[in-house]
């Protein structure tokens, strides 16, 4: 730990030097002086000193050099172990360090009704003007140097504040916040904990309740589609739930469900995400300035936590919509001790279709199951067991032209499990031990062979087993430290073809890889203006044949210009050993997750970001602007013409050593609370790629490079019974290529010539711009058993024909460009209920 602080000391020395008073030069010649003479010299230099006479440590001082700096003189006069020097303009206060008065306040903040722990709740001591926020488990820890009884306030948006006098010996201190009767479905940001307070930048969060209020495609609430409206985040292809964050690729997003990576977050070929809003408690996205505790992806961390389950009462909620129905149940198993949450979702087109026609030759459905157990072992220990399983299945059983059964099946799905053990190790140290399991599988087969098995089959999978231990430590007033380690065992099976009748099998080698990282970070409140989060993330990856290891420094700083205005900067160095091979970027099940190998190195990135953050209107409004520059290296991509069906070894189907650069500006105006909540975001960005064998080796626009992105997302609550949601998005058209020239080249086989088609440059053309307006209205009514809501929506309200795909059609020697559009105006209706 001493080493850790030494590192932090070095990292933050820059900031220390920036304080003029420490370096203030005192005019004094070398020689032997009494303490009084030295103090007089300091005062003669215009510096006021405030100290107790008993604090003077050395009565006689020998100076070797002329004109020493003020801090050096003070450290000679006073014992630095016992006193600290507080610089205030031209004054220095010599204040005793009262170690015996340092005390720690820690505990949990929970919702009173359900006992559910509140993430991001604020715990604040007004008399000391210090506070902290609860972590992902609702836990907080504050170290203060005042032993007296203190007034402590706990607050969270949508809840009544709880004020308590906490006596000197009282610890732990738990708070139970009662939902405000005026609770509104607002953006979950504490009114007192504003983004201007944190060092963390490039972060956004919202509650699932907010997402439920926004218009939804076919009435199916999808939190990833709300994430797509945040600045710096783009959609891959229309209607899909893929995320493109700050010019990154779809695989560069770490999607964590209760801390477990989810590899394919898509249902229905990307049109819906796997995250069921009924089961979700909180959503947070980080696009840059990544703290050291995160790693393994280059572009973003999307952290989604499931509900824990009500410890006191049984409750439920659900909906019946055009696409799917959902149901969530929660309640105590042992009151105030153990709770459960169980949620399911299923589509029913297949059931309806089969009811209409039992011989219908195709069948599709997806389903999700989320479950969580929450067990309070004692005051210090708590266990969580989370489970998610989602599955898509498409089957077509059509007769061929010869009347022979010719079935075709595609199945894919994720499964995740997390077992977490929270323990308050002591009053300053909190530990969370997590065991994780994550699996994604894709399987397709067609035909029937003699033994009834598919004539042709293809499957791919990735499976992770992980164990991590995270610690939060707050021993010192101004420092909040995190450290931990993580080990993951990856098993990837990139692709196995099997032809049953020919008894042939071709597969890429399975890769088993060891993935280990350790990290340490410290959030240091240097003074009222400066806060720094510095950390190191060290990762080791061994897929066999070659060991990769990377030291990834992270640094974020905040300078508070005024109470409601802060400037922030961050640097993050990242490595990603897992890659996604995709042509589409829409989250298709055919996308292939592959591990780095001895020949394919992990992807790397560095990102610099600067931002200005401002709150106004009593904290109800937030406006921010950020600029970023991201360098990417060791990127991979399919070679031209290669796809998941390329047989043999995938390593031969890819281009490696690709470079990327992405930069842009993001503006964000957010209304945090009130009857109207939501945001307007604008992103100006550019993203490019370079591969040796693509575009003649020159940089070219990334497929999802979109110069302008605008999103306007608002919910307005007219009354307790009626709410309106509005969503308008605009984006520059997607980049694409068309052939430009034809010419003859020598055919090496025949010695003759053959005709070839060529492209002037990759992705030099653009689809028409994309824009769309969605509307929704929610009619709520309280009933004897709870509340019901009718939600009606209009997707693409002004029926814009947005481009999904452009094609050049030639007829009668004339070329014309035809645009395929997917979704016209689509109404929806959903019935929701809570009890």
């Amino acid at each position, binding site marked *: 730990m001493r080493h850790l602080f030494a590192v932090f000391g070095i990292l933050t020395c820059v900031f220390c030097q920036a304080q003029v008073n420490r370096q203030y030069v005192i005019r004094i010649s070398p020689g032997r002086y009494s303490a009084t003479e030295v103090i007089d010299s300091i005062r003669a230099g215009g510096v006021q000193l405030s100290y107790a006479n008993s604090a003077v440590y050395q009565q006689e001082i020998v100076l070797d050099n002329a004109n020493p700096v003020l801090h050096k003189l003070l450290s000679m006069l006073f014992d630095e172990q016992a006193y600290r020097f507080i610089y205030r303009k031209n004054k220095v206060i010599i204040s005793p360090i009262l170690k015996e008065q340092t005390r720690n306040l820690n505990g949990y903040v929970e919702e009173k009704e359900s006992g559910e722990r509140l993430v991001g709740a604020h715990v604040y001591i007004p008399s000391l003007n210090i506070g902290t926020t609860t972590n992902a488990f609702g836990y907080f820890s504050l170290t203060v140097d005042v032993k007296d009884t203190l007034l402590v306030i706990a607050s969270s948006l949508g809840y009544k504040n709880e004020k308590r006098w906490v006596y000197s010996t009282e610890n732990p201190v738990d708070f139970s916040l009662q939902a405000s009767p005026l609770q509104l479905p607002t953006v979950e940001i504490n009114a007192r904990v504003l983004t201007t307070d944190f060092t963390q930048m490039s972060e956004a969060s919202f509650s699932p309740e907010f997402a439920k209020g926004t218009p939804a495609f076919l009435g199916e609430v999808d939190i990833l589609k709300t994430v797509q409206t945040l600045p710096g985040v783009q959609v891959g292809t229309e209607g899909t739930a893929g995320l493109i964050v700050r010019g990154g690729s779809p695989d560069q997003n770490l999607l964590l469900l209760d801390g477990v990576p989810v590899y394919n977050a898509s249902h229905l070929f990307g049109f819906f995400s796997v995250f069921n809003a009924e089961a979700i408690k909180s959503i947070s996205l980080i696009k840059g300035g990544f703290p050291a505790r995160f790693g393994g992806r280059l572009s973003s961390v999307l952290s989604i936590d499931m509900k824990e389950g009500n410890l006191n009462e049984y409750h439920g909620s659900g909906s019946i919509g055009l696409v799917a129905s959902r149901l969530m149940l929660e309640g105590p198993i042992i009151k105030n001790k153990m709770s459960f949450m169980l949620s399911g979702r299923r589509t029913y087109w297949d059931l309806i279709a089969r009811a209409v026609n039992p011989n219908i030759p*195709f069948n599709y459905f997806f389903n999700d199951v989320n479950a969580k157990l929450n067990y309070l072992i004692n005051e210090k220990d708590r266990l969580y067991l989370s489970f998610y399983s989602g599955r898509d299945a498409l089957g*077509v059983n059509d007769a061929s032209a010869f009347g022979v059964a010719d079935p075709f099946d595609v199945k894919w799905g994720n499964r995740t499990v997390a077992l977490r053990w929270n323990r308050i190790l002591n009053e300053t140290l909190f530990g969370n031990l997590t065991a994780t399991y994550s699996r994604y599988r894709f399987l397709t087969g067609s035909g029937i062979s003699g033994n009834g098995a598919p004539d042709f089959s293809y499957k791919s999978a990735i499976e992770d087993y992980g164990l991590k231990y995270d610690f939060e430590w707050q021993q010192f007033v101004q420092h909040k430290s995190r450290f931990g380690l993580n080990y993951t065992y990856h098993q990837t099976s990139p692709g196995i073809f099997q032809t049953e009748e020919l008894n042939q099998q071709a597969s890429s080698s399975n890769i088993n890889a060891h993935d280990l990282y350790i990290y340490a970070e410290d959030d240091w409140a240097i003074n009222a203006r400066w806060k720094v989060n510095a950390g190191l993330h060290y990762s080791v990856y061994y897929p066999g044949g070659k060991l990769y290891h990377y030291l990834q420094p992270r640094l974020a700083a905040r300078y508070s210009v005024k109470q409601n205005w802060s400037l922030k900067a961050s640097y993050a160095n990242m490595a990603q050993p897992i890659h996604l091979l995709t*042509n589409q970027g829409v989250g298709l099940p055919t996308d292939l997750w592959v591990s780095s190998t001895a020949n394919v190195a992990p992807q790397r990135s560095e990102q610099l970001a600067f931002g200005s953050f401002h709150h106004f209107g009593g904290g109800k409004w937030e406006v921010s602007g950020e600029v970023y520059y991201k360098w990417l290296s060791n990127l991979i991509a399919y070679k031209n*013409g290669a796809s998941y069906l390329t*047989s043999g070894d995938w390593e031969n189907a890819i281009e490696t050593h690709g470079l990327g650069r992405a930069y842009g500006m993001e503006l964000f105006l957010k209304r945090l609370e009130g009857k109207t909540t939501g945001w307007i975001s604008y992103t100006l960005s550019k993203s490019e790629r370079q591969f040796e064998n693509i575009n*003649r080796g020159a940089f070219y626009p990334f497929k999802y490079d979109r110069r302008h992105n605008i999103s306007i997302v608002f919910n307005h609550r007219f009354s307790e019974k009626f709410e309106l949601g509005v969503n308008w998005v605009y984006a520059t058209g997607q980049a694409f290529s068309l052939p430009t020239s034809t010419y003859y080249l020598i055919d090496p086989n025949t010695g003759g*010539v053959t005709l070839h088609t060529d*492209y002037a440059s990759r992705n030099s053309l653009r689809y028409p711009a994309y824009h769309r307006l969605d509307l929704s209205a929610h009619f709520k009514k309280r009933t004897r058993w709870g509340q019901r809501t009718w939600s009606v929506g209009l997707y693409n309200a002004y029926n814009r024909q947005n481009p999904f795909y452009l094609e050049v059609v030639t007829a009668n020697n004339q070329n014309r460009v035809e645009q395929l559009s997917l979704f016209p105006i689509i109404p929806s209706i959903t019935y929701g209920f809570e009890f």
Partner: protein
Amino acid sequence: MALSFNRVSIFCAFLVLGACTKTLDFPLPEEKPKIVLDAKLIVGDSIKVLAGISAPFWSNATPVLSDSARIYLFENQLLIDTLQPKAVESGGLFDSTYFLYTSGKPLNDRALYTIKASVEGFPDVEGSDRVPGKPEPLHLVIDTVEKQISFSLINQSVPAYYLFDCYLDRENERLFLNLSTSDPEMLVQESSGYIYTGASLPEGIRYYLKNENSGQRAFNFRYSAQFDLSGEIVFRILQVSSDYYRHEVSKGTQEADVPLFSDQGNLHSNVKNGYGIVACAHKTEIRVNR
């Protein structure tokens, strides 16, 4: 109610919920015609250069082969010859006589060659490439019974680029044999021209390798043909330049582009102001006498 569904297409139609098409007023890219050069300069072979003019893809114009180009050959930046057109009977798709520009000058090891071309009405073009070292096979073993050939090569540069093929040398005729190997790093080219990136494909007529490791590397091929193998079999080992390799591979993989979603590729070129390639190679021929 009898419904007739057509596999996945029906499902997709259901998905898109009324997907529609419309014709756009979209300006198609207009690329001006440019001079095209195709010059594969292989030490030991005579110099032959194809010159032509490209056509804009989205026009009714067609590309042409030129017999009126002025083509100059430079060795280490010194002009050594002006190439002369020579009529060639067409093979392949081009159904007429065309012209190749030839030179009797020998090519020298490690020399830098530049070809400059001009055609009236078009900007001049030029391309340069350096001849790589001669591949020297070691531990050569030829098994004419099993139809196998094995050898080792020492990389003279990193990365080194190789091309392997095998043909039956008959009078006025080159019949390429099928080759197969279990070498997972190879790219294999079918007779159709398409280059497969997979390793487990059984046969092709040409193999490419980008070898990024220094030192010695072993190779093993089997050859076969569906025709009578009477005649002299020539196994060619070419050490090719980076431009040569990139052009051939980009040409081969482009054949496989699927329009929907896929990223179309352009052909690698080192011809300034034009299209095509000027690329050098150095070959070793192993003659398998029967």
